[in-house]
């Protein structure tokens, strides 16, 4: 397969990848910085009668319309951000309890509340456990535009193969940045089938009368999730084998950290990076393995510690390393800043 390089923005790439994955129906509501994706889809749908588009009256309705589309067997998806993300978690938990392949792209922006329209990594908790969720969804975190292109396709694949709501958790910087990307890397499409008006009649409920009925339903879901997790979980450990300082970072900050490690290694510093690619399910084992020789762990994120809490909880029995926090809520973190922080202690 020959390389095909194009200069595209994150928004362009999400749209392109979704179409390559077989997306046919988009229901959504505009919110910065994800609106361009919706506009792009509307333009495509105007040209192609096989594509469906609905701008709803709010995000909760959008998510419910997505569920309608999924029941009809169409690969249906949406995009959102910030407070819109909060509202979509409502239909998302319906998808969670019904095991529906609900796919959405989230371009994180500043929070809480309206925050900024720009950037953050503050929607991690919301993506992983938003709504009254038990976290039975998949959350992917691309770290650069190439990964965004491949992961967006993979999200549709995962959602439809394992019947799990799947979120592509990007951010406003990634979405708006123009960079080169190789668009020849296309995944084969996962087949879609209608749930309603197909084979046997189905009566789907999300409300149970008795505690034990719900418990039984949940136990089935938990078992399915655990089994699927083994296939889905993904992370990157970069130069962690002999690392004395291990950086934990994700998304675009994860890529900045990788460049920082690359630079510090040129100065012979034993630094490594653990970067989760799936934030749910989380690669606990990979994280524990990455810190086996570490005496310091640097957690870098554009939030007040949402990722840090996951890291510390995961590693609680597995390390005596000292934690260093580089928390910059709603602000970006450059490779230089990470390098400088490490040089303070090493």
């Amino acid at each position, binding site marked *: 397969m020959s390389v095909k390089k194009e200069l595209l923005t994150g928004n362009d790439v999400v749209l392109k990848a979704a179409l390559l994955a077989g997306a046919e*129906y988009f*229901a959504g509501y505009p919110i910065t910085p994800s609106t361009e994706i919706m506009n792009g889809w509307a333009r495509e749908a105007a040209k192609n009668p096989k594509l*469906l588009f*609905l701008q*709803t*009256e*709010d995000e*909760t*309705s*959008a998510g*419910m*319309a*997505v*569920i*309608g*589309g999924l*029941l*009809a*067997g*169409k690969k*249906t998806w949406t995009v959102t951000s910030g407070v819109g993300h909060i509202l979509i978690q*409502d*239909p998302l938990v*319906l998808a969670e309890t019904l095991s529906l392949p609900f796919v959405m792209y989230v371009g994180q922006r500043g929070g809480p509340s309206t925050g900024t329209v720009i950037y953050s990594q503050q929607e991690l908790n919301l993506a992983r456990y938003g709504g009254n969720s038990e976290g039975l969804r998949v959350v992917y975190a691309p770290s650069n535009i190439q990964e965004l292109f491949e992961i967006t396709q993979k999200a549709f694949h995962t959602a439809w193969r394992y019947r799990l709501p799947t979120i592509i958790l990007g951010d406003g910087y990634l979405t708006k940045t123009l960079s080169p990307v190789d668009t020849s890397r296309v995944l084969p499409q996962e087949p879609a089938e*209608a*749930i*309603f*008006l197909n084979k046997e*009649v*189905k*009566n*789907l*409920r*999300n*409300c149970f*009368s008795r505690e034990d009925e719900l418990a039984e339903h949940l136990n089935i879901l938990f078992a399915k999730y655990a089994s699927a997790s083994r296939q889905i979980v993904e992370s990157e450990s970069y130069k962690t084998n002999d690392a004395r300082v291990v950086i934990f970072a994700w998304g675009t900050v994860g890529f900045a950290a990788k460049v920082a490690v690359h630079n510090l290694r040129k100065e012979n510093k034993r630094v490594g990076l653990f970067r989760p690619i799936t934030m749910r399910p989380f690669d606990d084992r990979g994280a524990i393995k990455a810190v086996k020789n570490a005496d310091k762990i640097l957690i870098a994120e554009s939030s007040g510690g949402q990722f840090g809490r996951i890291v510390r909880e995961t590693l609680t029995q597995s390390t005596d390393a000292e934690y260093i926090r580089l928390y910059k809520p709603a602000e970006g973190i450059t490779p230089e800043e990470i390098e400088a922080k490490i040089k303070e202690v090493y």
Partner: protein
Amino acid sequence: MEPRYPHCVNPKTKPSNFCPGCGYGIILKTLGEVIDELEIAPRTVFAVDIGCNLLAWNYYKLDTIQTHHGRVTPLSVGYKRANRESVTIGIAGDGGLYAIGLQSFLHAAHRDDPVTIIGVNNTIYAMTGGQLAPTSLYGQITDSSPEGKFTYEKPVLGPELAKDMAGPSAYLARASILNIPQMKQMLKSAIERQIGGHFSFVEIMSYCPTNWKTDAKQSIEALEKLEETFKLGVING
């Protein structure tokens, strides 16, 4: 002799869990007859939310989705867009249509989405035990208005409200369980209007003996009185 149910009704889930004397029994059976007579069962999809209608989740041998409060309309709209050949029917109560679901209800009318929404109006939030509804009458005593004191003078009149936002070809009507032939005709017309490509809505006045704390005779009398405020008939189309 066995009571005869419409074919599309699921006999295995009977008797249903509705309260004795609930209007839903009449409504759902009548709707079932209409579905049978129009021969649309193989392409009908049914949506309910978490009002008392949630108990209808397995009432029919029809693909049914029970969704969140107020989201019957957007889910039905979303589904219908992806399957134009289907007949999509959503049922919701006063809260699901006129409170939390009002926005979606009006926008579906505004977009002329070809779905059929059935609104069961008993002027109270029954599933949660009897709170104030947008359709409660001025001075009505409910759990959340124990002295009958609240701000609005007029109840929400659903079909009339939708008329302003709906397209000219929408079907908007109000029926009552006290007049089953008229209700049946309206349900039929509504579904036919959906098949013709337009938004259709039937509000059905119903009683709730459990929360109204009325016996059979009182329930009927109270409902007859309500029909003075909520006038039966075709409002549009």
